């Protein structure tokens, strides 16, 4: 959290002035009982009307000045807090964008989104509250005590006893209940879990007629939750009565010792009233202070989470010097003894991989889940860096390329078809910002997407909602293919990206890619043999190792793993043949 606070620097003036003005307000508030005491002792006792009016005007003045300084403080606090969180969000968002794929895997998308949204709100709220209250509340509590001392030190000793006792009660009860509230939350999560489970599994539960068992299970957890809630409730029910007793015990003590002091002439009647008023003031502020502590704890926890994200170092460095284009390098992509291990993921995902891919060649990659297919092709645009060995593009180690130069050579269509809010045209133009209308249309035609785009209202300008939720899976996949094609990449990678297309469309798309005029090097990753059987060469991966390379026919004869996959999909055909 500490490191985040440097972003408050821009608002240094506001962050200092806000608490100061709050203190100013508090000191005016602390003067009120004294003025009232003066009214009683001087004005009423001496029957001095002009004095009373003067003092009443003073009270009004205090109120107005108090209001003015408080408003100033609120404004500065809000400005500093909002400005601070805006700045941190700005920095955080840019930092998240530089995270490597392994960092993204490690931290997880939901966590990142959470940090950017709810954690940031908590921090903003925390900063705001601290600026507003952190000085005010202690100032009033201790200020009241100091004012009591200025009136009469013997009576002020009552404050010295009551304030620590109150603190112990308020803080003690909070310390006792906070961890208990966590157990309550856990119990509530369990009740929620059962409810959710009963909804997601409703078919199975009814098929096995488990309704009654589930109901009993729910009752148990529900009762447990109630029991815990009552238990915590019983503890926190002590808060109000105990503080009430303490403060009023203080008042009683003040009245008695005050009476003694007045009797010997050390104190006036008005001053006793002032002391009682101070005693009543501290309770409210102490409770506020306790709540502030909770807000701060939460905000600091959130702030720390944000800081850990900001502290993730840039795992990958890219060169700044462009690589001179080597015309007509014969080998487009080469894997030299490449191994890869995922962050914290024990076994090697790829193991000593060697492969040379000629320019213009189409490579099919097949294998079961977890065999390393996606990993392999993700090494080409440096989404991940090989743990061992080298990946070369156009004969040059990918590590030597500047980020933009390397990635602009590659058009990749990922497994998950991701689109963004905007028009269809804008989404496709991500691939190539300078693409003209006809280029976009051409790319869409190749991707077999023109037909459905034409049916949309607005055609190319039809709106795509957030994450493309208003399109079907197949439509999204075709648009992502078009997005990759529109940049006319030297290397085209299709990572299991046609799974939602029916067989016929899938086949047409593959044919279209074969006819591309600029003859890219193509990688097609798939689980289905039909998708890759016409590739120039097929790479069969099994547990991160190459189990075979060759054409469909060659592999059927030579590669067991390939045959196994093929037969599980074309069982009878083969038997019949």
């Amino acid at each position, binding site marked *: 959290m500490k490191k985040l606070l440097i972003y408050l620097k821009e608002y240094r003036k506001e962050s200092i002035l806000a608490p100061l003005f709050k203190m100013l307000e508090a000191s005016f508030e602390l003067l009120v009982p004294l003025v009232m005491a003066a009214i009683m002792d001087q004005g009423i006792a001496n029957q001095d009307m002009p004095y009373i009016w003067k003092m009443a005007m003073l009270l009004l003045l205090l109120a107005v000045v108090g*209001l003015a300084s408080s408003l100033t403080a609120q404004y500065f606090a809000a400005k500093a807090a909002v400005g601070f969180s805006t700045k941190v969000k700005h920095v955080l968002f840019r930092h998240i964008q530089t995270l490597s794929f392994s960092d993204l895997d490690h931290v997880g998308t939901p966590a990142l989104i959470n940090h950017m949204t709810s954690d940031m709100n908590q921090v903003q709220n925390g900063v705001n509250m601290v600026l507003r209250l952190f000085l005010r509340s202690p100032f009033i509590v201790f200020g009241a005590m100091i004012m009591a001392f200025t009136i009469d030190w013997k009576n002020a000793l009552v404050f010295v006893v009551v304030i620590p006792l109150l603190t112990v009660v308020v803080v003690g009860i909070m310390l006792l209940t906070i961890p208990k509230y966590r157990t309550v939350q856990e119990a509530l999560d369990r009740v929620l879990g059962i409810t959710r489970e009963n909804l997601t599994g409703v078919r199975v539960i009814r098929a096995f007629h488990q309704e009654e068992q589930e109901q009993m299970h729910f009752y148990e957890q529900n009762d447990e939750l109630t029991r815990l809630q009552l238990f915590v409730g019983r503890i926190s029910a002590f808060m109000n009565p105990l503080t009430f007793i303490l403060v009023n015990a203080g008042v009683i003590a003040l009245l008695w010792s005050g009476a003694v002091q007045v*009797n010997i002439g050390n104190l006036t009647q008005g001053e006793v009233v002032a002391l009682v008023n101070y005693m009543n003031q501290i309770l409210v502020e102490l409770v506020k202070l306790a709540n502030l502590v909770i807000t701060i704890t939460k905000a600091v926890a959130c702030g720390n989470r944000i800081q850990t994200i900001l502290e993730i170092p840039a795992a990958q460095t890219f060169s700044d010097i462009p690589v001179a284009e080597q015309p007509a390098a014969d080998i487009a992509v080469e894997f030299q003894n490449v191994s890869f291990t995922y962050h914290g993921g024990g076994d090697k995902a790829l193991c000593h991989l060697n492969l040379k891919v000629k320019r213009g060649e189409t490579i099919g990659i097949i294998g079961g889940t977890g065999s390393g297919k996606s990993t392999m092709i993700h090494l080409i645009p440096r989404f991940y860096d090989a743990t061992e060995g080298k990946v070369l593009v156009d004969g040059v180690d990918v590590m030597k390329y500047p980020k933009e130069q390397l990635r602009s050579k590659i058009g990749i269509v990922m497994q998950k078809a991701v689109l963004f809010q905007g028009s269809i045209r804008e989404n496709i133009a991500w691939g190539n910002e300078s693409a003209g209308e006809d280029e976009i249309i051409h790319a869409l035609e190749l991707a077999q997407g023109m037909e459905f785009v034409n049916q949309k209202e607005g055609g190319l300008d039809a709106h795509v909602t957030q994450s493309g939720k208003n399109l079907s899976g197949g439509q999204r996949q075709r648009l992502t293919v078009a997005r990759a094609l529109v940049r006319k990449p030297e290397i085209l990678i299709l990572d299991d990206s046609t799974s939602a297309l029916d067989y016929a469309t899938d086949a047409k798309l593959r044919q279209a890619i074969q006819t591309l005029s600029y003859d890219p090097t193509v990688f097609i990753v798939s689980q289905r043999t039909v998708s890759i059987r016409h590739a120039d060469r097929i790479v069969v991966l099994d547990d991160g190792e190459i189990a075979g390379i060759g054409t469909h026919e060659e592999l059927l004869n030579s590669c067991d793993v390939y045959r196994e996959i093929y037969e599980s999909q074309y069982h009878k055909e083969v038997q019949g043949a």
Partner: protein
Amino acid sequence: MSRNVNDEKQNSGIWKTFRRLMRYLRPYGHILCFSVMTSLISVGLTLYLPILTGRAVDAIIGPDAVDFDRILEILIFMAASVAITALAQWVMNVCNNKMTYSIVRDVRRDAFEHLQSLPLKYLDAHTSGEIVSRIIADVDQFADGLLMGFTQFFTSLITIFGTLIFMLTIHPMVTLVVVCITPVSLFVSAYIAKKTYHMFRMQSETRGEQTGYIDEMISGLRVVQAYHREEAVAERFDEINRKLQKRSLKAIFFSSITNPATRFVNSLVYAGVGITGAIAAIHGRMTVGQLTSFLGYANQYTKPFNEISGVVTELQNALACAARIFAFMDEEPQTPEAEDAVVLTDVKGNVGIHDVSFSYVPDQKLLEHVTLAVRAGQRIAIVGPTGCGKTTLINLLMRFYDVNRGSITVEGEDIRHVTRNSLRDAYGMVLQETWLKTGTVRENICMGYPEATEEEMIEAAKLSHAHSFIKRLPQGYDTVITEDSDTLSQGQKQLLCIARVMLCRPPMLILDEATSSIDTRTEIRIQKAFHQLMQGRTSFIVAHRLSTIQEADVILVMKDGNIIEQGNHEELLAKRGFYYTLYNS
């Protein structure tokens, strides 16, 4: 005119909700009485304390003019009042807790019970998140808002009237000052709330926009990086961020005026009481002690007003939540079992579908006049592109939904005249979206047959090719599986689901083949397990594998929710229809 009717309707709705809530309150009526009584005591005594303080002050006039006997008497009285008040407060807190949490428990219980009786038609039409938030969040909100709000409303109300009465007994004129100025704070806070409402809406709108953008861009970050669009994306983000900054500042600042403003009004009341009280005191119509009591009241008098205005919105919100929960509980449960429903026994596996028509939405035709006779032991493959409604058939066979027209029979018995449990017992179902409950592997396998012996369970696991991997789990059959744990792969989960059915040995099967995301080896195991399972049983299979399809006795080809072709592999190929194109692509 129509608005009036609407308002009336709404009002009667609120009353209905309220009356229904009262029914839940009834068992705790004695606690409510106790709570009301103790809150009366505590509020009354709390208000009496400033008067006692004032009297004590009046006994402290000046040097050698202190009436110690009287002070002692008053202080003892004060101490007693404080003790009783504290006790009353505690009892009140405990009562309110007991009442709130018990009612929450009862409502949740009933809601969950109702959930079990709802037809799938309702459950499919609502997301699980929606229903969960009914049973969890809404119930919490309404409990907090309604009961806490109710008690707060009540105590605030007594405080206001109590204070008024106490003040009037001391001095009517000064009371008038308090009564006239205090409502200003209400107006001020209401005014600010009204003014800031718009700003808050703008803020949350922009915040929503930002959250949406963050969600979209972080989820799609890999694509952003692949296409090197970081800069453009970040610029757009900053744009939204700046907009949010402006709007947040406005909303936060203007709403934070409320507290200083009400404090200001409070100071006005204080000053007003001070001056009028002092004047009254000079003329001997009031003592200094009474002025002290007044100042005590003046300090607190705005509080209950502000609380009430806060409570009213909370109450409205709570009633809205309650209304949603009750609406959920009023959803029509599934058709009750027929009175003469028979228990299916000795099922061999003969299923008849007789001229069945069905649709989820009345005017959207789906299945039309489907007829099919399935003999015991036959295999029926259902094929078609994704989203063609293959699950519809499963829904009807299992009677998750009832047919609109025609009938489905098992062993000649209309399934609507059969108890649901015995019908569902006759089927074993393995769905593609594997569902396992939180619990041990053992509990999951024995779900349909809890009385199974250890040997029977292991036998079933072995037949399903699940035993070997279960053995390797950290605690074997006692390993706990949770919904989102990675202990098991997708394929292993499916094997467990198969074992679950294998143990029950039902005469008929409904199987849903997985499309992808299972590695080849497990896939082969699953197919073997399916084969083992299908031996001699009538099976309905949602099929993706060509091999499964070819071996089926009857293939149902579905498209857009309807069965368009029906026959075996050779017949369908000869037809050169949709199946032919599917097969040859």
